[in-house]
């Protein structure tokens, strides 16, 4: 193996950080980043699904015939999404209500399927776990960064705490749909600027 485990882990944090480097999984990132809390919750849910589906795909990679691999991946991912859904209903019900249909929609999140196809199907179990954690944490960082930006300017709070004091006029554009697109576009431009040096 050319790359060490650490490298597999850290590449998800900058080199291939979703959704900036891999333009995948945009929908949840736009929809759930109204606040830091939502972003964090979504990020953790995705890490869970990503790591476990990576493990299972990696374990079964010799058994799954390549013609039907996508169908198999989807079933594996859907199973873990249902697990997350039930766990959140039991232990984090308010967050479950806030994220709404975006929890079951993790199943069609391209990041998860993309990692199963591009990485876990070709690599061993330890590397797949590292990859799952790396990409998952990278995704969470992006979600929290975007959520933080939108919450601070759109609501004047960060993780529910007031930042600018009571005299601040919230810039509600950031919380609404158009702000999400513009904000992500500008962050992508900043990433490009930083990466091209």
């Amino acid at each position, binding site marked *: 193996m050319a790359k060490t485990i650490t490298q597999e882990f850290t590449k998800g944090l900058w080199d291939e950080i979703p959704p900036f480097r891999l333009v995948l999984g945009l929908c949840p990132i736009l*929809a759930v980043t109204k606040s830091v809390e939502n972003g964090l919750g979504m990020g953790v849910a995705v890490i869970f699904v990503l790591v476990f589906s990576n493990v299972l795909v990696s374990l079964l990679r010799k058994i799954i015939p390549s013609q039907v691999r996508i169908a198999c991946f989807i079933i594996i991912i859907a199973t873990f999404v249902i697990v997350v*859904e039930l766990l959140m209903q039991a232990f984090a019900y308010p967050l479950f209500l806030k994220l709404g249909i975006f929890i079951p929609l993790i199943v069609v*999140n391209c990041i998860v399927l993309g990692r199963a196809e591009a990485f876990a199907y070709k690599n061993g179990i330890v590397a797949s776990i590292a990859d799952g954690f790396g990409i998952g944490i990278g995704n969470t960082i992006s979600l929290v960064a975007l959520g933080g930006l939108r919450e601070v300017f759109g609501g004047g709070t960060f993780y529910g705490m007031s930042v600018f004091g009571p005299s601040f006029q919230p810039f509600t554009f950031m919380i*609404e749909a158009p702000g999400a697109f513009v904000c992500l576009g500008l962050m992508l431009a900043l990433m490009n600027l930083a990466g091209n040096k």
Partner: protein
Amino acid sequence: MGDYVLLAISCILVNNILLIQYLGNCPFLGTSKKMETAVGMGMAVVFVLVMAGAITWLIEVYILKAFGLEYLRTIAFILVIASLVQFVEMFLKKSIPALYKGLGIFLPLITTNCAVMGVCLININEEYTFMQTVVSSFSYATGFGLALVLFAGVRERILLARVPKPLQDTSIGLVTAGLLSLAFFAFKGMA
């Protein structure tokens, strides 16, 4: 009848699936560089979404609810959508090869298009009747196609503009989508 018209307008414009509900953004950015692929993708989504909406509603009511298996909803829906997409792909390959070539990789990607799955889940969550499900699926899909075609038109013009280097491609695409979303946002005042 008036209710259905109202529902259709609300799904196409006020709650536009792409720009207000943020579902299906990957194909939105991927297939919107050319007008033809945008139109093709929009049509494929309309076809798949109406069928998927109707079938998932039947499955939810007559199988999952009847046997108390609601927790299997995610897995059941994704399987239905995946097989439908396969069917549409075979159909297009045989009857309209030109469109099949134009859509290329994006047709199998409808499986992982969250707009399709999302609308099926919205229909269930809102507890629509069968007719309402069909109308809402069709209208959401039309809204998707409308936004996609509008955006493709804008994007073809952007090609001619001089865009700063870091902003090129996806980045400027997202900012443009934001402005388009702002236009659709105004419909909220109608509701």
